[in-house]
Structures are given as C-alpha cells and as structure tokens.
C-alpha cells in the first residue's frame, strides 16, 4: 500500500527527536484521525538550520514528517512556508488517497513552529484540535 520511499522514511525516519532550546515549537493534532505531531526548529538568519519532530501517528504521518524535515532543512522560512502537502506526497512517490490527510500533520506542525518563532498566535491550529481528546 505504501511506496518504497514511504517505507524507507517510516523505517528510518530522519530528524526524530527534540531540540532542547528550539527557536520555534509547533504542535498540532490531526482533526481527521486524532494523531499528534510536534515540531522543533532552530532558525539562523531566517534559515532553518536544524529541525526535529516527534509524532504519535500513522506510517504516513511518520514518513511525511521525516521527509518534510529533510526538505526544509537549510531552506529559508519563506521557502519552507511554500512547501505544499502535494509536494511532500510527490517526494514520497505518492500516498494512498485515504492517507493524503496525514501529510497535513507535518505541514501544519511546521507552519505552527514557524509562527511560534515569529511570535504569531496560531488560532488555526486550535480549530484543528477541537475534536481531539488528548
């Protein structure tokens, strides 16, 4: 059901963990399935120099998070913000249709972490979380 690329990132997820003194931290719950994702970023001169994630989520959530961190590491915040779910899915050689929503988890957590770095209160995220019981 999953592509080899997905399975590779699932089995050997890149950049798992926490950054103790992160510049930005984002946490989101996936409204579709209840899974949870946390993302930590270190930012220098508007560039993401380090990024780590933790997830309580499905295989697709883990793989999309992993590849997302790879794709944005070394990118500017603007570039990172432009990354779309479908680019992520494409980089993984596709996701099953019922798993497309999972790629939101990583993108949303990243956006959330960037907002946190920029000092923006994130209302969006809370609407996402409303029907999640954690």
């Amino acid at each position: 059901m999953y592509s080899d690329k997905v399975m590779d990132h699932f089995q050997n997820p890149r950049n798992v963990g926490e950054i103790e003194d992160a510049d930005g931290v984002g946490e989101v719950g996936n409204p579709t399935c209840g899974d949870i994702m946390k993302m930590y970023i270190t930012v220098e001169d508007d560039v993401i120099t380090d990024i780590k994630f933790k997830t309580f989520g499905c295989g697709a959530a883990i793989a999309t998070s992993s590849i997302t961190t790879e794709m944005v590491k070394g990118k500017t915040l603007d570039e990172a913000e432009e990354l779309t779910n479908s680019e992520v899915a494409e980089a993984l050689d596709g996701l099953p249709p019922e798993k497309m929503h999972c790629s939101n988890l990583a993108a949303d957590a990243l956006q959330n972490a960037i907002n946190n770095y920029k000092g923006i209160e994130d209302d969006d995220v809370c609407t996402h979380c409303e029907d999640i019981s954690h």
Partner: protein
Amino acid sequence: MEKVYLDNAATTPVAPEVKEAIEPYLAEKFGNASSVHSFGREVREKVEAVREEVAELIGADDPEEVIFTSGGTEADNLSIKGIAMENRDKGQHIITSSIEHHAVLHPCEYLEEYHDFDVTYLPVDEDGLVDPADVAEAITDETILVTIMLANNEVGTIQPIAEIGEILKDKDIYFHTDAVQAVGSIPVDVNELQVDLLSLSAHKFNGPKGIGACYIRKGTEIIPFMHGGAQERGLRASTENVPGIVGLGKAAELAAENLEEKQKKITELRDRLINGIKENIDEVILNGHPTKRLPNNVNVSIRYIEGESLLLNLDLEGIAASSGSACTSGSLDPSHVLLAMDIPHEIAHGSLRLTLGKYTTEEEIDYALERLSKVVDKLRAMSPIYNK
C-alpha cells in the same frame, strides 16, 4: 524465525487436510450438485455429508437446519433481513448490541433506513459484556428479533447467550447469534444457547474463504436473502460452492476433534503472551473481559503509540497482527467496539490485536514478545506524548 502469523481472527491458514479434501472437488468432481446425472449425484452426496458434519459441530438436531452461505456476512444478512422481512407484520423492532460486527450492524441500519425498522443498540460494560437484563428491558410488543454475537471479533469477549436465550425462550421473538469467531474455537451448541439462528464462517477455523453456514431452527419463518434457483431447499439460491462446502466440512470435522484439549493449550499460549506483554511493557491495558474471552484473543492498548505504525513495524519484523478488525483496517475511525467499551479515543488508537491459531507455537509467542518490546520502545521514543 521467518514469519509469525498472529491475526487468526482476521482469517486462518487452511489446514493441509482441508486443502487435500478440496482438491478432488476442484477438478475431477466438478458436477453441479443439482444435476441428476452421475456428475451431479456424486457431489450431492458429499454436500449432504458435510451438512451432517456441520450440524454435529454446532449440536443441531437435523442437518436440514444447516444452510450453506458464502460466508459469515451472508449468514448474518440472511438471518437478519430474512427474519425482518418475513415477520415485519408482527413488529418492526430489533434488539442488538453496539459491539456487533458490521455484518450485523449494517443490515440493521439498512432495515432502519430503508424499511422503517426500529433498532435498539444495547450498551456494553467496560469489559465488552452485554447485560441480559438490558435485553429483557428493551423488549417491546414490536420486537421480532434479538441478535447478539457469541464472541466479539476484536476483544474476544464471550457474551451470555444462553442466559439471553433463557429470557427469550417463551417469547415470540427470534434469537440470532453471530458465532463466526466462536465456532471452531469454543464448544457451541445451538440448543444449549437456545438460539434460532446462528452464523458461522469456515475461514475462521482453518477452512477456505467464501463459504459459511447459517443454522436455521426448524419452524423458523424466514424468507431467502439470495433469491434465485431452488438450491438449499429454496432458502439460498446459486450453484452450490462444492469445493468450499467440502472444505467447510473437513474444517468442521477437524475443529470438533479434541476441541477442549486444544482450547486449553491455546489458552495457555494466550496467557503466556498476555503476561509477557504486561511484564515487558509498562502502561498497557488488556481490552475485553479477563476470563470470559476467546482462548485465542489478546487485545491490548499500548499507550502513547499509534496502531498503524505499530502494525507496520511488527510487519517489518515478520509479525502479522491487527488493530481492530481487518475489515476496518482501511478506515481511520477508532474501533466502534473499543469506543462502546468507553475506552478513550487515544488509547483505542493504540490498540493491538494478536490472535493465536491452531498452528501457533510457544517459540512464536516468545519471538513476538521480544520484537513487540523493541518496536514499542522505538515508537515511544518518537512519541510527543510519552514522557519517560
């Protein structure tokens, strides 16, 4: 250790004896059981012999009470829709439970939506048990059918069917039980259970897929579900699936042999697995009833990790398991069974079902225990909500 199959509630490997029994009926003995010529008669005889075999396995008085179907789902559809449509003039109320398989729930919902039936979905307690007193209380003048499963496919809880049968026995209400997970695993007797209808499916006890049976007590007023030719005394049309029926017969015969002994052996393996998990992993919860459970069912919630990634990791270790029922594995909803048992969403999300089978060995259990611990450690280390 190559592969360990611990998903016997989803389906079981076909026993070699079953495969062997089927083979001649695939090719040489290919006749249509309804044909009058020799090709038909030789398979007809075999089909009727299997009917006796199945009747014996479930304690039916008369082989004619056994109707072959394409599986458990069809037996459920036949029982529920067949009784409902034939008896709707007497009343349009059905009682069931909230933890039934979809093969029971969806026919009930169909009757609600398309035929204005009323269905009561009884709650269960935290162990997944239906209270017989709730059944008694739910009965109205309109009630024509009660359908409660004998054993749950996800958490393995065994329901007090005989007690419910006792409540219903003098009433003009039909009683059906979905025994798909129970038959072949524990002793099942339609008279002890006092049921009028019962569903079973061969592939759950080392028989082939695509064949099952419906027990229908003599005198039950029911219409066919599958309409067409006059097969199965007019109760189930379509050319008999002879190889399937032969496989079901062999599986029934094998299941009946030393059933209690096998039950004891598998219960021991199950408990070895449960105890091992409790010892190796902290914060796990056993779902389902601690003792009133199928001898082959282990269902645990492992906190802070998610079911699919757990399954995928186990699969990479060669261990086949499941999270909720196989049929819903494509779905994102947490199991309706666990939710009905009031298990919180995020705990339900981390549920793991390991179901043992006829061929499960102690070595396999030990291997699974070792790998499960490893995988849980890996996933918990990635979990944003685990803090140890």
